[in-house]
């Protein structure tokens, strides 16, 4: 089988298209690259959606945490503590079995036990909590002068938030938020190792990499390929977030614009 045929058969295998049986013996490099690359679709899917929905929720959570009203502040604090204080790995397990037991009473929860929805919810809540903490920190460090100037111009309420607080918060939070995004994409590899079943062997990149490593008993080929894909993905994220960062700071003179750190800190 030529490499092009392999690509045709397996490029969308992770979504259920193409050849049904995975390769079983005489693995070629081409099969490694194609299948692991195919699995990356899921990593990108989880990462992009969780980040997009999580961003909205994180903004709300950060505002709630910064508010003086205890009815808003306490729940936000609790939520952030719950998701930042426990391992994502355990959160996945718990959520899966939680949805499973809900499903046995209410059939409505059926789709929640599948990875595409259940794991997405966990990832979204998790990244919302981490990002909210970042945004909260940024809200706390908005220069006093900016807020006073907004008051002096007669801006208040929603308009002040939309024009002054929110853009400044994003500017301050952006480098840390970039780290969070990278880390979230890394965390998507956990999904299929935590109870969520890879139905019909439709898994993510790490699922296929470990499939190859199990079959060939040779970890030195699939995992470096996976690493390469992830480094490419990380570079894309850095590029995209760097572009947004430049746009956020467009009003500053060229010399004052700080470039987004190219060597981000992968710790959160």
């Amino acid at each position: 089988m030529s490499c092009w045929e392999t690509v045709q058969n397996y490029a969308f295998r992770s979504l259920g298209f193409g050849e049904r049986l995975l390769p079983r013996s005489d693995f070629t490099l081409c099969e490694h690259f194609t299948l692991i690359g195919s699995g990356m679709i899921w990593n990108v899917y989880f990462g992009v959606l969780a980040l997009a929905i999580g961003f909205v929720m994180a903004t709300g959570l950060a505002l709630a945490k910064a508010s003086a009203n205890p009815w808003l502040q306490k729940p936000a604090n609790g939520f952030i503590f719950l998701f930042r204080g426990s391992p994502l790995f355990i959160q996945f397990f718990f959520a899966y079995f939680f949805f499973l037991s809900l499903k046995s009473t209410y059939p409505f929860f059926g789709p929640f036990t599948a990875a595409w929805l259940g794991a997405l919810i966990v990832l979204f809540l998790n990244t919302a909590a981490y990002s909210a903490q970042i945004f909260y920190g940024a809200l706390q460090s908005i220069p006093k002068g900016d807020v006073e100037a907004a008051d002096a111009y007669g801006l208040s309420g929603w308009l002040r938030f939309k024009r002054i607080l929110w853009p400044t918060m994003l500017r301050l939070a952006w480098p840390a938020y970039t780290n969070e995004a990278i880390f979230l994409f890394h965390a998507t590899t956990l999904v299929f190792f935590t109870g969520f079943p890879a139905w019909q062997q439709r898994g993510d990149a790490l699922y296929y990499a470990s499939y190859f490593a199990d079959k060939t008993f040779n970890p030195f080929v699939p995992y470096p390929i996976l690493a390469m894909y992830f480094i490419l993905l990380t570079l894309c994220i850095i590029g995209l977030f760097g572009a947004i960062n430049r746009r956020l700071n467009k009003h500053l003179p060229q010399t004052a614009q700080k470039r987004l750190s190219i060597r981000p800190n992968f710790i959160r």
Partner: protein
Amino acid sequence: MWSWCAEPDALSSVTWLSCYLTTGVHFQFYNAFFKVLFLLAIIAPVSLAFGFMGAMAARSALLPLRWFGRSYIAIVRGVPDIAFFLFFVIALDQAFEWMRHKAMCPDWSEPIRQGADFIVCQQAKLPLGTAPEWIHQFYAFGLAVVTFAIVFGAFAANVLFGAMNAVPRAQLETAEAYGMSPRQTFWRIQVPQMWVFALPGLSNLWQILIKATPLLFLLGIEDVVYWARELGGTKTSRFTEYPHGDWRMWYFLALLIFYLLMTWGSEKFLNRLTLRLSKGQATTGGEAQRKEAPV
């Protein structure tokens, strides 16, 4: 365990639970918690040592060593940690066996990789096929420790590298002016002063390390996650005196609470440590303490 546990079927809910939670397998589950704590206690110093060596390599005067240190930090941080765990656990095992094979069976002619098999001579097997069970478990645990240390060593190296560079230049210049050699300056001035700069990063790392311990499960260790899955699954009366439905959700809830307590407790402790260490330091934290102190 208790005297009233002889007839589990006849018990009421609370006493039934007290019997259920003290069965032999449950004690293995509780033991797994100590396994996690034990692992943390070993990995923390080992990965700190790895990190220290990594940071020293990254700022070494020798170019190859510097490249090695920097690429170690960059590669480990750029790839999902779970991929590293899955990779190293097999790779380290094969690397050890390969080295032993080369040393012990020099006249072995067949290739080591035959299709899907990795074949070394009998004497080179790790652990030896004849070894008792506890050696196998110990070996698996040791591999897990080394894997964790490699991954977290890179994170720690990054933190310590930054902290070493954060020591005020004036301090080092003063040391040079006193006639200290570069080695003396490093050990007597830079290393003692870097800890306060490293502390925020290291405490962050400690929290991440706590939250990474459930990944032990993926390395084939019978840890808390393994037992939670085992014990929580549906049990019929054919296999146990304590039949129950699918309780895995509750077991994982218990794990969730365990980890929340761990991170919450360490946060409290680390905050106090930070206060303690910034006493008298020329940092914002130290300055704030100085102003608050009664004159």
